[in-house]
């Protein structure tokens, strides 16, 4: 497997651990749907959370969270909507972004951005 894909899987593992430390219950990973893929799906209490994980090794120009732009967000909303529809979930849901920065052998840095759409993207 190519190196950047390994990094991605490693990052997702780190992200899952970080989320579970905070009480999230991860229920799905790498869900492939017609309109795209969801890295992770979890429950935060009674709210369903679609998680997008972004992993970067240190030294890149931009921090990982800035790589989620408006078009990526719209795509996440679209895919997320498919997911909740397929699963028949009728409660509230949101989208979180988890940014993982890896630096050599050091512990990776994890940051969680809650509810990134903030009601600004129309359903």
């Amino acid at each position: 497997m190519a190196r950047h894909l390994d990094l991605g899987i490693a990052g997702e593992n780190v992200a899952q651990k970080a989320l579970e430390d905070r009480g999230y219950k991860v229920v799905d990973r790498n869900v492939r749907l017609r309109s795209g893929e969801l890295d992770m799906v979890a429950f935060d209490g009674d709210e369903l959370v679609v998680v997008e994980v972004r992993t970067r090794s240190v030294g890149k120009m931009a921090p990982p969270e800035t790589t989620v732009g408006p078009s990526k967000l719209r795509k996440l909303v679209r895919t997320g909507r498919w997911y909740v529809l397929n699963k028949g979930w009728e409660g509230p849901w949101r989208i979180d972004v988890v940014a993982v920065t890896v630096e050599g052998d050091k512990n990776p840095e994890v940051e969680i951005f809650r509810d990134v759409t903030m009601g600004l993207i129309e359903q």
Partner: protein
Amino acid sequence: MSAFGVTLQGIEARKVEVEVEITGGLFSISVVGLPDASVREARERVRAALRSVGMSVRGRVAINLAPADLPKEGALLDLPMAVGIARAMGEIPPVGEAICMGELALDGRIRRVRGVVPAAILAKKAGLPLFVPEANAREVSLVSGVTAYAVSSLGSLFAHLRGERALNPVEGGYVGDAKIEVEPDLADIKGQAQAKRALEIAAAGGHNLILVGSPGSGKTMLAKSLRGLLPPLSDEEVMETLLVRSTVGLPPEESRTRPFRMVHHTATTVSICGGGATLKPGEVSLAHRGVLFLDELTEFRRDLLEALRQPLEDGNIVVSRASGSVTYPARVLLVAACNPCQCGYYGDPEIPCRCPSGALERYQRKLSGPIIDRIDLHVAVPRLTPEELVQFERDNSRTSASVREQVTKARDLQLDRWRAFGFTNNAEIPEKILKKHLGVKKESRNFLREAAGRLRLSGRGLSRVLRVARTIADLDGDERVEPCHLSEALAYREGANMPWTV
């Protein structure tokens, strides 16, 4: 489950029901029911303010503002929207109905809004408690018979609604000082005995007044002194003026001194008459029950002066736009000042007029007949004589306070006479009623007929002369209008005939 807010229609507040429904889905807030941009933007403020008190809104939030056909404007709907969402989330108990208003800050503070007084009157009529921003507490305290609470933040409102920490209702306020201290005092103005007398009559009967004089003769100073001659506002009048001030977001006055609005001649028709997208009241309504002063009358745009004709006659102004039509009160005493001609010295005994031929006529033609006809007192304000100029002693025989006493007596007489008809002073009274209360003797009629012919009086012109005569008689405490009162009133009318001189 719902909360109530208000939206303004002129000086009236209309009740708005805020319905909130929260369903599952990705977080979003949508507002329907003809919100304007500031109401739609409330979404961000409401969400942040709710978060500041530890409530995170989830799912799809649909907010409906009823009645659906009434346009809603202003950030004052932030608060009922936040209360509605908190109720729908089950964070606060579904307590009884209440009207709330306030703009939310991102940190949950509640900012001052306009329209608290109309809302208080609505709440009083509907028998509902009212929650207003703390910054508006004084305004609401002046409206009696309403249970109002002043709230500083969303947190303290919720604590009150949950019954954790009850707020105290706003106590009935003090309507303001009846003491009137206005600069300049009449005693400080040199000379100009005739103009001072005209000011007294204008104040007593509410008559419109124009001061014509050369530059530096003291027209503006005289006009400003008028405010100190007027009696304090009555309780009812305080409410009327408060209502207009609250509608434009001005804080209440500290005293009962009558409004005095000085308008610059570059003003637009909308700023004076009212209007704009939100149909706000203009200067003529802010001057309600007080004085509207137009300095340099001839410099005003003509269409603006023509627009003032209807409010001067009717005492109210109807502002109509595509977005609706509202009526504002506009019972004002109009005071105008101007020069007799372009150079300012036409008619001066010593300084020759430098205007080229035709300029005088062109200058005075700027004022239309209908406007001049609506002004009862035409007063020439001549340059002071050298003797008057070096008169440094105060003339204590006629101070503003002593003249105000006379004026108040005359106003009380008028109030007793006209109360049954629903009017307060001679200037407002319709001719039909006025005629029965003049007591003009037979011999005075001939005199009047002669004068009417000489001055080429119009029907309105004559009835205005009679009103002024009635006021002069009231100042004298006379039941009947005597020939001397008529002749003085006619003298003030004489100036209406062009060209003016100093």
